[in-house]
């Protein structure tokens, strides 16, 4: 991780759901985080649904379907070591119009994406004790397909887009 990532970091939020699926965000100072060799990183590119097909849950189903393609791999990797804190990271970009503003106000697609991610992990029996969202602007954490590494790159459209990292902290089994 490069030294200037703290300047690129916008905010961190602890996420939770209450009764009747009420969504809660709590700003947290849980930063910086360290990426461990045991961590599992998923990178999601863009998604799009034709306007006339929206508001039918198609994107939600599609996200869940995509995650489901990796359920056996994720479960195997997440279960292989219970002595260290395995984190599951989901990286995705949001345009500024689809995300909270710079001070965390307004609306965002993150709660829905986080809910899908959380419910997916629940569905494959990976217990999670915390879900934290980190946002970046001037530098983006991305998964580099060519090098298969998690790297930070300069965001050429910093005013228009945020990169989000959802981190699910896996519970550790106590023997």
């Amino acid at each position, binding site marked *: 991780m490069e030294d200037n990532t703290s300047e690129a970091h916008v905010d961190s939020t602890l996420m939770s759901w209450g009764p009747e699926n009420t969504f809660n965000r709590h700003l947290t100072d849980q930063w910086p985080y360290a990426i461990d060799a045991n961590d599992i990183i998923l990178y999601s590119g863009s998604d799009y649904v034709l306007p006339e097909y929206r508001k039918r849950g*198609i994107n939600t189903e599609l996200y869940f379907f995509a995650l489901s*393609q990796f359920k056996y791999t994720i479960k195997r*990797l997440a279960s292989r070591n219970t002595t260290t804190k395995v984190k599951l990271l989901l990286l995705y970009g949001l345009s500024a119009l689809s995300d909270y503003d710079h001070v965390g106000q307004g609306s965002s697609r993150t709660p829905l994406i986080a809910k899908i991610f959380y419910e997916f992990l629940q569905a494959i029996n990976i217990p999670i004790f915390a879900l934290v969202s980190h946002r970046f602007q001037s530098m983006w954490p991305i*998964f580099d397909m060519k090098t298969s590494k998690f790297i930070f790159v300069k965001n050429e459209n910093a005013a228009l887009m945020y990169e989000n990292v959802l981190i699910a902290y896996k519970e550790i089994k106590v023997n």
Partner: protein
Amino acid sequence: MKILLSSMGCFMTISFFASDINHSIQYSVATQKDIPSLLQLMDCARSSAEDCKRVVIAPAHVQEEYLKEGIEKQRIFIAKDTATDRIVG
């Protein structure tokens, strides 16, 4: 261990359906024959000023390069309207 949200899906042909009043939507992994329809979907997003602002889309030459390389299509998940065989998401 890093996983792209999509690789290895190419070995699975699992699809499932979600019905609503008017349509049945099939979810699957994109294949070679879906490429033209996928490019149309990207054009549709780019042709809408509002959607362009709301959807993070990689430059066309980047996406098409991956499509041509035969890599990315194995990692693209599609929603298809079975009534029209059109990719809708």
